[in-house]
């Protein structure tokens, strides 16, 4: 076990996979000489050379499409979105070609690619740099979507994503790169499609992902003191959802709250609660709750920004009332 920062855990995962498989390469803005805006590819340029860690011009749609073509012809590219929001410019390639091409081609081609980068709301970065594209990309067929939340799962999931033969959208969080914890030594992977039961409990199930995991942990500590026994689940896989783990939990607690950083309309929770209603309706003792960001562009002002996203106190309040039946 070694104390590791999240961005270094990601870096180690990429480094180990590149060392093992010569077809693994990285494309993106400032991934090479600069080492990545959040240093996720630091020193890899020196180690693997300019073709394997390719500094691209600022042309998101084209270098993402280039990754598709490279993957179709035998490489395993990792595309870095310097900020995941920039990949709105690559929506066409991600949707039409990463997501749909294998099916449209009748199985002629596979597209083993990872698209990774910082998502989420940071600290006063303004609306454009505070997007949550996991919701926007959720309807695209043929892609897996994961969101990492700790150094341990960041490394294990990155390695699994690189080895996967399908396109994986890999969401990191701009405020979690300096999170530090002891992680297992050496080579290990985490399954891309399995939720992580962070805490077992009997009263209320909380489903969350990415940075909101840490808000939920804060809330759970307070709820514990008040005698509310929360089962906290980090979804990890946003597409497909791990419905086995989710259903099992709801069968036990009969109450569920989704805590998410994306906007409420068309968000991850919208789809998740629809599925819970379909799969677990008879197990529920109360209506499912959604705690989501406001349906607004993220404001710059810090106080307004805090009002835009969910805070731990709101999670405490919702869980307390859900258990008490006073919603």
């Amino acid at each position, binding site marked *: 076990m070694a104390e590791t920062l999240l961005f270094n855990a990601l870096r180690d995962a990429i480094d180990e996979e590149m060392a093992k498989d010569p077809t693994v390469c990285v494309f993106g803005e400032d991934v090479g000489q600069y080492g990545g805006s959040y240093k996720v590819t630091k020193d890899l340029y020196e180690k693997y050379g300019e073709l*394997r860690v390719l500094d691209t011009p600022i042309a998101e*749609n*084209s270098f993402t499409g*280039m990754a598709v*073509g490279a993957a179709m*012809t035998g490489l395993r590219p990792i595309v870095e979105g310097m900020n995941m929001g920039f990949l709105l410019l690559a929506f066409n390639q991600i949707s039409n070609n990463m997501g749909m091409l294998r099916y*449209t*081609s009748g199985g002629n*081609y596979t597209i*083993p690619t990872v698209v990774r980068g910082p998502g989420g709301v940071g600290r006063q970065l303004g609306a454009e740099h505070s997007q949550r594209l996991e919701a926007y990309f959720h309807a695209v067929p043929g892609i897996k979507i994961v969101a990492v939340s700790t150094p341990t799962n960041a490394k294990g999931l990155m390695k699994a994503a690189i080895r996967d033969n399908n396109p994986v959208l890999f969401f990191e969080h701009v405020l979690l790169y300096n999170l530090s914890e002891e992680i297992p030594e050496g080579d290990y992977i985490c399954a891309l499609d399995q939720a992580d039961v962070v805490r077992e409990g009997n009263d209320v199930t909380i489903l969350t992902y990415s940075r909101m995991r840490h808000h939920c942990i804060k809330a759970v500590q307070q709820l514990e003191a008040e005698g509310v026994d929360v089962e906290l689940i980090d979804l990890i896989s946003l597409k497909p959802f791990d419905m086995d783990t989710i259903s099992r939990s709801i069968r036990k607690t009969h109450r569920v709250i989704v805590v998410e950083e994306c906007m409420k309309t068309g968000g991850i929770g919208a789809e998740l609660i629809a599925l819970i209603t379909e799969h677990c309706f008879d197990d529920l003792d109360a209506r499912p709750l959604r705690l989501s960001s406001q349906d607004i562009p993220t404001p710059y002002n810090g106080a307004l920004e805090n009002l835009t996203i969910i805070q731990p106190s709101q999670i405490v309040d919702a869980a307390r009332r859900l258990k008490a039946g006073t919603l």
Partner: protein
Amino acid sequence: MTQEIAVPARPEATPVSSPLSSHSERLASLYTAGPTAVSRDDGLILYRDMTLGRRFEDKCAEMYYRGKMFGFVHLYNGQEAVSTGVIKAMRAQHDWFCSTYRDHVHALSCGVPAREVMSELFGKATGCSKGRGGSMHLFSKEHHLLGGYAFIGEGIPVALGAAFTSRYKRDAMGDASSDSVTAAFFGDGTCNNGQFFECLNMAALWKLPILFVVENNKWAIGMAHDRATSDPEIWRKAAAFGMAGEEVDGMDVLAVRAAAQRAVERARAGEGPTLLECLTYRFRGHSLADPDELRSEAEKEFWAQRDPIKALAGHLTAHGLASAEELKAIEKEIDAEVADAVSFALAAPEPDPAELTRYIWAED
């Protein structure tokens, strides 16, 4: 009463256009980009491929109007010299090819069997995309067809990726035999789209082995090329990226082939990309749903006179490389091949409904 003052007559307004803005004038002013000599064997390969393209598309129109194929169908008639000239200058199942929604004939030139293409157009399980793609999405990994891409410009980055892999395998993985070249086909309308410029930049920057083949047929559906672009001479845009650019008579298969051979030689030698602008014309509307009301009869007639298949036939017979009877015999063989493709496709099974969700994931 005021006296009328004679006003001097105004001079006739002169149209504001460059002397070379007209497609046909440009064609007339091209110098011969020789050498365009061809052997008998090669000449017959070209003739066979172009004839297959033409007859296949004519059959598609017939089948579409008979209700055997659906959706948007874009035919290639008139542009055969480009597909044949470029693809036959490259190595089958070694080099890579990337097409657009007008992709039937590129697929045939790549060697995808007519049966598989026709089956795909009929939506059958035996189609090259298993009935999932249709007319605008023909794929064949076996024949190195990267696919038909139906949004303007989106195939170019994919083609660039194939060219990148070729260089990567040679320079990052130490495979000295990795010398494949990629040809990306697209039209004049695409040359106003960002992906075109972004990919020209990256290809030149990294000296990637790729041919950007512009099939300039003068019309992007109903938008005349001269109305859509500030400089109609697309090949000149290569200079802005420091890459080779060439314009060629896209109705002359031998000229296209010679230009493609030069470009492929440069690409294989590590000298990077070429922008090849082929001046051509489509003999039919944009798609079979296009009323084709904007193109003048005179314009169509001008280009009909330059039918690339008739031109090649004239060359082969004039140079004693083939007799008219031999060419007729090839046409009969092709007609039989196309008829066989139709009967095969008609008899072929529909995709299994139980496999509706197959091919979403790599494991399935």
